[in-house]
């Protein structure tokens, strides 16, 4: 327990010290050079704005976070299901995989304004759809890669046991694909928050962090805009850490097998 605590401290301490030093330097530089707050506000100004509207920012984070979470779950489930299907039916896999690879290269938030026009202005659905598509891509790609890996030894071993395709899937492919799934999930959880916040830039419901950023900038309240950006950063960090924690709990320290 204490050893684990010490290791945790050793991991956390350097970035913490670095972060504090960075903020200090930022504060001093802004004050010394007298940069205008619309160019770069001092950390203390952002802090004050955050304190003044902490309730609103928390509420906005909750709404953007809900969009990110729902979209992420839908995207992950779809990604896993389709990857499993593509593994079982190589013909389908061959047809779908290149399309998804192309999807990975596309800026999916660009879809947001188009999806907005399809629904009522009060609907959260278009945002959640953008998130789901963004999250789907890395999960599908990684899970498919993990499922299609079968080392020659394991293939021959299962052949010597006269194992069925379903048995190979259950005993080798699925457990072997778990680390790949979590790699995909980590990428997807970060993308989900980005997609949820950025999709709010294009109008629609005015309730999330993205909307607050655009409205604060419109009102030239730059410290407030930065405070909302900080909220978005925290939300992204939360999603990332949650996926990391889930990975630790499920696969422990089992590293990704080397290619």
């Amino acid at each position, binding site marked *: 327990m204490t050893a684990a605590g010490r290791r945790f401290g050793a991991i956390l301490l350097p970035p913490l010290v670095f972060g504090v030093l960075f903020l200090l330097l930022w504060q001093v530089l802004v004050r010394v050079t007298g940069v205008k707050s619309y160019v770069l506000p001092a950390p203390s100004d952002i802090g004050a704005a955050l304190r003044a509207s902490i309730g609103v920012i928390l509420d906005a984070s909750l709404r953007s976070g809900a969009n990110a979470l729902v979209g992420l779950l839908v995207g992950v489930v779809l990604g896993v299901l389709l990857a499993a299907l593509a593994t079982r039916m190589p013909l389908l896999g061959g047809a779908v995989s290149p399309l998804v690879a192309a999807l990975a290269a596309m800026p999916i938030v660009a879809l947001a304004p188009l999806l907005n026009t399809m629904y009522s202005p009060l609907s959260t659905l278009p945002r959640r759809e953008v998130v789901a598509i963004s999250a789907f891509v890395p999960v599908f790609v990684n899970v498919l890669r993990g499922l299609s890996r079968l*080392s020659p*030894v*394991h293939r*021959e*071993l*299962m*052949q*010597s*046991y*006269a*194992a069925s395709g379903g*048995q190979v899937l259950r*005993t*080798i492919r699925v*457990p*072997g694909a*778990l680390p790949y799934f979590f790699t995909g999930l980590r990428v997807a959880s970060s993308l989900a928050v980005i997609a949820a916040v950025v999709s709010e830039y294009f109008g629609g419901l005015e309730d999330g962090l993205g909307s607050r950023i655009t409205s604060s900038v419109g009102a030239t309240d730059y410290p407030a805009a930065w405070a909302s950006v900080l909220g978005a950063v925290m939300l992204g960090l939360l999603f990332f850490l949650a996926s990391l924690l889930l990975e630790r709990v499920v*696969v422990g320290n*089992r590293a990704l*097998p080397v290619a």
Partner: protein
Amino acid sequence: MSTTGATTGATTAPAVEIRGVSKTFTVRRGAVVALEAIDLTVAPGEFVSLIGPSGCGKSTLLRIIADLLTPTSGTVEVGGKTAQRARLDQDYGFTFQQAGLLDWRTVRTNVELPLELHGVDRATRKARALELLELVGLFDFAGHRPPQLSGGMQQRVAIARALAERPTLLLMDEPFGALDEMTRERMQAELVRIARETSAAVVFVTHSIPEAVFLSDRVVVMSPRPGRIAEIIPVDLGDRTEDTREAPHFYATITRVREALRGRTVPDAGALEADIRADVAADSNTADTNAARGAL
């Protein structure tokens, strides 16, 4: 499923009977003749090693016996059945050059894998796995995961797994290739013991001449391009102990195998044979080697 009783009962059919087997691989630029006109019979409980230069088809021959590859021509019978029937009936255990364990399972559940795949119930599986881990000296590591074990320990887990369904035949492809000399000799001694206790026939691929001689009733020397059997050398060393490695006839047999690998027959083969025979007679001869001789 086969039982230990069946192991000793099914002594009528040879453990392996290979007749006129050839294997040609078609590759992008033409064909590779990996094996040509192989004839080999392995008696029940007999220990046979395959030795020969890299690429002479040892692994290919082992895979053909295991029905992981089909021969281009010729027939293979395992315990009187077709190779395919024997594979479906789980009559053999196979250990690969890499241990091929599943890293996410414990040592015990790795050993249980074949039993699990063939619908053996949980309690029986567990009991059998622990019994096998006892046999290979890893009982205390049942709850560990493979990455926590040394290479030699992983190989022993793979051997335990191969023994799980009480096979009458063990097929082993360079199982000790990656081990240091000391571990290797200890593993060899253990394998001799395990083979004796389970009375399974063993076909063992190796690159080490002393290893082949120490373990085997017969050493099959193969030559490359195309892969053929150059010579089959009987080993009459009696019960294997650590003293076996110091015995003069151990060295004499090593010399014979080495000469056969070089494609030469020993000039004074007769004298060498007489020497070996005298030494064997001096020792108390065992039923084991008699059985092996009977199979010749």
